[in-house]
């Protein structure tokens, strides 16, 4: 590919690239200005005008990596406890599971269940604080994915496909809506452990799109972004003189080459890299947050401190115009509970319960919740069948996620699984539908945000999703 050069006009291909095909495309393309030089920014630069009235401007995705058990959190199944110890009845289709546990005895749920809030949502005693936000949650009990393993599951939840190569949802959002802050990335990822998320950085990669749309891993501490600071021994003055000199050489080179906008983009990107050294640490510096706020997020307790801090960072990033924030919990498949689910989930649920409640409450009291869609879930749920006596296998055929804020109707439940929570039976919502629906909540038409790739008009939903009217509440 040649440089972008100076071209402010659209070629037919650029038009298709940014606009896709179909009649609605015209509107999107005309409004976005995609194709103008935008390379020096993190995201696509200018914020774009969505297709519809957007209910949400930002997303915070609470990704419980490894697969939390819907059967023990949001989807009570009395029959499961009745049939515990027996095999899956013949009336159920035999699923293919990761560890081949289709014929293992059913495992009871030891949870105490109660209905909460005006909507009467069922939430188990593993998430005691969630009762306070029950009326904010739209619990989707009928989620469906294709990935029976972590790699495929996490990949599909992020990109729509079980194997690599496609852009992640955050990249699509950045592509479709652009950035609201030139000095910070539009798509930020934070994880709670030192372990890597399954599949590595491509979980937030931009796939076939330019890497301008990729997610950026944010870490706590003085160097939140990789290579943000010069190595030890490089003072601020030294660094600034050097960057000035690089750009002096670049200006010299640019003479007579003004039409090549890539050259200019790089000059600006050096300037921005320098500016970011100040911006990014400020965004993650929580020293000015009050003790009350820190407590709200559970930062006063060791059990909840880490995720509490991450949830607070998410709010700070939303305030600074970051579009898409993904907070991994249990990075490295920690929610995976093939055995000892009681021990595993007790600990993990405690670690997220107060931080999530804190996040929702804080967003709400600051008036941010109505513009911010919060999504909770893993890459799949867990089976009613047991594994190793006291664990559960992966279940992508029916599991729970929830949404809050961003214009979704709280205190509601969407879809159902069968009586044992194995398959989604009513109003099944595939990952593609979930992505299409999130787009709709952001005011984007999933059929119109198109990226041309190798002759195919690619969409966020792999051309297969539909907007869930039950979630939209229309």
């Amino acid at each position: 590919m040649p440089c972008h050069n100076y071209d402010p006009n659209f070629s037919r291909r650029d038009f298709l690239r940014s606009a896709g095909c179909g009649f609605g495309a015209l509107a999107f393309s005309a409004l976005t200005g995609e194709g103008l030089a935008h390379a020096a920014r993190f995201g696509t630069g200018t914020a774009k005008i969505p297709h519809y009235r957007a209910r949400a401007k930002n997303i915070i995705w609470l990704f419980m990596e490894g697969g939390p058990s819907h059967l023990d959190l949001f989807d009570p199944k009395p029959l499961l406890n009745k049939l515990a110890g027996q095999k899956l009845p013949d009336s159920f289709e035999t699923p293919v599971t990761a560890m081949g546990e289709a014929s293992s005895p059913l495992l009871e749920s030891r949870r105490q269940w109660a209905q909460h809030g005006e909507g009467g949502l069922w939430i188990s005693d593993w998430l005691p604080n969630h009762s306070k936000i029950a009326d904010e949650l739209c619990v989707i009990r009928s989620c469906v994915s294709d990935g029976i393993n972590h790699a495929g599951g996490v990949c599909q939840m992020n990109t729509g496909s079980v194997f690599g190569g496609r852009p992640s949802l955050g990249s699509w959002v950045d592509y479709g809506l652009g950035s609201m802050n030139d000095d910070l990335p539009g798509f930020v990822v934070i994880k709670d452990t030192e372990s890597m998320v399954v599949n590595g950085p491509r979980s937030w990669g931009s796939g076939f799109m330019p890497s301008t749309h990729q997610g950026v891993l944010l870490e706590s501490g003085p160097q939140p972004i990789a290579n943000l600071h010069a190595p030890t021994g490089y003072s601020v003055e030294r660094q600034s003189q050097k960057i000035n000199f690089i750009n002096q050489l670049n200006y010299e080179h640019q003479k007579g080459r003004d039409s090549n906008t890539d050259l200019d983009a790089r000059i600006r990107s050096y300037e921005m890299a320098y500016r970011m050294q100040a911006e990014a640490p400020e965004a993650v510096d929580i020293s000015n947050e009050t003790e009350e706020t820190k407590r709200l997020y559970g930062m006063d307790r060791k059990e909840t401190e880490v995720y509490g801090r991450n949830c607070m960072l998410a709010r700070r990033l939303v305030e600074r115009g970051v579009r898409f924030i993904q907070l991994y919990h249990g990075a490295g498949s920690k929610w995976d509970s093939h055995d000892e689910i009681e021990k595993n989930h007790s600990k993990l649920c405690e670690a997220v319960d107060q931080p999530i409640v804190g996040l929702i409450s804080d967003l709400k009291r600051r008036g941010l919740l109505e513009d911010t869609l919060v999504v909770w879930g893993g890459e799949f749920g867990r089976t009613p069948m047991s594994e190793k006596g006291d664990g559960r296998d992966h279940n992508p055929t029916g599991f729970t996620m929830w949404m809050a804020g961003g214009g979704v109707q709280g205190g509601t439940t969407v879809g159902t699984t069968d009586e044992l929570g194995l398959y989604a039976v009513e109003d099944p919502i595939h990952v593609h539908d979930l992505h299409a629906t999130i787009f709709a909540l952001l005011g984007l038409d999933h059929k119109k945000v198109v990226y041309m790739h190798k002759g195919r008009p690619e969409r966020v939903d792999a051309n297969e999703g539909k907007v869930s009217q039950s979630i939209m509440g229309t």
Partner: protein
Amino acid sequence: MSTPVTTKASRDLIRGKKAANWLVRVGLLSVVLFGVPAGFANTEADPFTKEDYNWWAIQPVKDVGVPAVDNASWVKTPIDHFVIQKLREAELQPASPADSYELVRRVYFDLHGLPPSLDQVDAFVEAASVNFESAYTSLLEELLASPRYGERWAQHWLDVARYAETDGYRADQYRAGAYLYRDYVIQSFNEDKPYDQFIREQLAGDEMDADDPDVVIGTAFLRHGVYEYNQRDARFQWELILNEMTNVTGETFLGLGFGCAQCHDHKFDPILQKDYYALQSFLTTSYWPDGKKLTTPKQEEDYTATLATWTETAKPVLDEIEAIKRPHADAMGGFVIKQFPPDIQEMYKKPFEERTSFEKQMAEMIEKQVIERIGRLDYSAQLKSKEPEKLARYEELLRLLAELEKEKPEDLPKAFITTDISKEAVASLLGGRLGSEEVSPAFLTILGDPKPVIKPTATTTGRRTALADWIANPKNPLSTRVMANRLWHYHFGTGLVPTPNDFGTLGEDPSHPELLDWLTNQFIDNGWKMKPIHRLIMTSATYLQTAQKEPDLRSQTVDPENRLLWRFSPTRLSAEQARDAMLVASGEMTQRMGGLSQDADTSVRSIYIKKLRNKPEKFLHSFDAPLGFDSAPDRLQTTTSLQSLMLVNSEWPLQRAAMFAKRIVGDSQAIVDDQIETAFKIAYNRPPTSAEVKLAKDFIDNQQAQLEDQFSVVSPISEFNDSALFSIDEGFSAVDQSFSLGDMALRLEPGSPHERLKLPEVELTGSSFSVEAVVILNGLHADASVNTLISQWSGDPSESGWSIGITSAQSKYDSRNFIVQLIGEDGVGNMDYQVVASGLRVPLDTPVYLAAVVTANKQLNESGGGEVVFYMKNLSDSYSVLETVSVSHPIAARIFSPNTKMILGGRDSVGHLWNGQIARISISDDPLPRSSLFVETAISPEDRANWRFSGANAQTAIPDGASWLLPTRLEKAQDPFFGAVTDFCHALITSNAFLYLH
């Protein structure tokens, strides 16, 4: 296309005449008049429209004449006739020729992917000034004959072939034999292998010549797709693999995105869903063998014979080991098998000869996982828990085997190839799992080519050969044009068809359709060879144009994208070009011819760097190298802030800059204009302008002055007139009084006179010891160096020693990992070096308590080994608890080396220094239980050194008998002059004139 003449005739009938086209729309009539075009049954209506039949890409390649033009002074080759004709029509003027500097840089990067050396630039510029034509021709010949050519052009093909060296799923396992395909591609380009042969080898090398490893390896092409090592839904996984194979074959060789047609007739191109499954049917019987070796039969025979001799000697040991292992392996195998769906298990349980081909494939999917899982079975651990009485014998046997294996013949390379599971074809089912309609091998319906003639071989269906023959047929309008276009694309940055993997209707039409056909014919007429086409293109006036021409109003209006080539399009260096050019500038590049892939911190060309799908090399990834998940026909050119941060702040470019600086100024303390000019010439491949030289001189002067100031400034922590001391309240105020710290903390700073402290003798005996400390770590090394807290080690992994520290940014163990390095004898008396990593992450700039209790004890476990118990507590946080981790290791004895100094803050060698403060440290000769650690009790056990720090200066504060060691080397970057030159060189290799061909 075994009868191309008939085919062409029938196609011409179908679409050639307007009347006939109209008739074709009336399905039945067409059948009556012209017979049924192959591919759809006579009961079906023709699924295609007139427009479909007129699709340019499926028209036969025309025998076009070279257009006559009157601008004889500009044109050099027939290519120019086509180009100037279009430019004239658009009222555009070509650019003037590139000067010799611009051209020599372009040509080297184009053919070799590397910049020219100083001498190569000078030689060409001089020769060209005498006789341009001959200088240029001989330059091209020289470059085309060099092995560097294959390394550059193979990269293009590897992109298209989605080449990578790992599985691409969670485990992302390394594919041991994959690199042999990379070498095969390099070799194929270097020997200018005809492309039709190259196609055949990659699709059906196993059917062409199963005995020739250089041919069979081509089939790795079908095997580069992703694979999930623990996917129990075997059907689903195999379907994904097949679809991937089908898509990549269609895109690579035919320039068609078949993907859409997997689920429905293509919405934009005349490709039917049936066509997708017809194409897939050529591949449905394939599989990825694991046990095969990539050798000739003779090599295999020799190997087998030598191995047999060895096996005879080793037999008693081998048999006994096998007898011990077998039950555990079988149990694990059974465990894996049971996780598959019951019907797949049934297939696996059937005797081999009773399985259908599909069942064999499914059984193979199980077998792969069984072998993989058993392969990482820890038999010692199994025995320990289930048959402890056998453990000692087993480990003794392993030792015997290790001895025997010294005589064992070296293993043959694993064959990372594809072949068929049997000669009985597996049906291709339309609709996949749910489908029932069987689709037999056929070519694109719209082309109307007759059904393939398929001849099975002894072991395969012969289907892939039929597919390869059709693709490699000179009359195939798609495969031939696609490759001719790729060659153009890589030379000019944009193809005549700008979408090289997509000749469909959503791709763009060719800018110069006649030129594309003319070039395609040249390609075929030259025996499908690439080098003649390189010559044709590169000697054209079109290629020789300068990129330094600004658009005028006319070109901006009618051809802003430069499709008509009114200048040479500027491009950025690709990932590999940029990385390789930095290594050339620094003088570090080492050339090689093929071989195992290397880690990114080596000096080999980028094509030889390990290509890990889930952990891509950071520099290459940042510059848009594809990840290898699907066929990549072109490279994006992104400019991001993250990329700029990587260029200015990451260690790799900085190191190249330092080496570049050393190359320019050596150890001298002054730089002259000539040296500045040389640096520019190395980086930009041209002499600098006077303005550039002036900028550089000013910069180096200013930067040197600035650095002199900076380095002379007394560190702000020197309130006590001693940078080695730090008031305890400065960093450790939050630490509980029970730790009874002194008034001061020692501050160890790399590059200062207080880098490392040699401790007074502490006699450690036996096989265990404990170290506890209260410290702050202020910064990590930017490379993989360890931040050593304390050690008694020379740094040589073959000499006894131990070292306790924290890992740095680039460490294999991840950063801030609390580790112990142990070097001693293992259970059988061999010297071994082990990194025992706790996984505990030490926070920076925070007071922490650290302890390591090390045992290395033969008695503990007869086979040798011991453990390290790590403790860590964040002392700034009163809520934090004492974290603890035990890690076992195989070192059993001799970790103490009495002659080696015990050093605080480093090793008895260069580097690996601590940067931070130490408030208390104690060492015990015993493996202290938790209850005796000072974090838990104020009562100190006996027999240990126990230091706190109080005093007026660096000498009085340290323990009696301790002494500061001289810095092992003056950090070069801390030398103001060298630092300034390094910064100058760093700017050169990160500036636009370096990164762009413009």
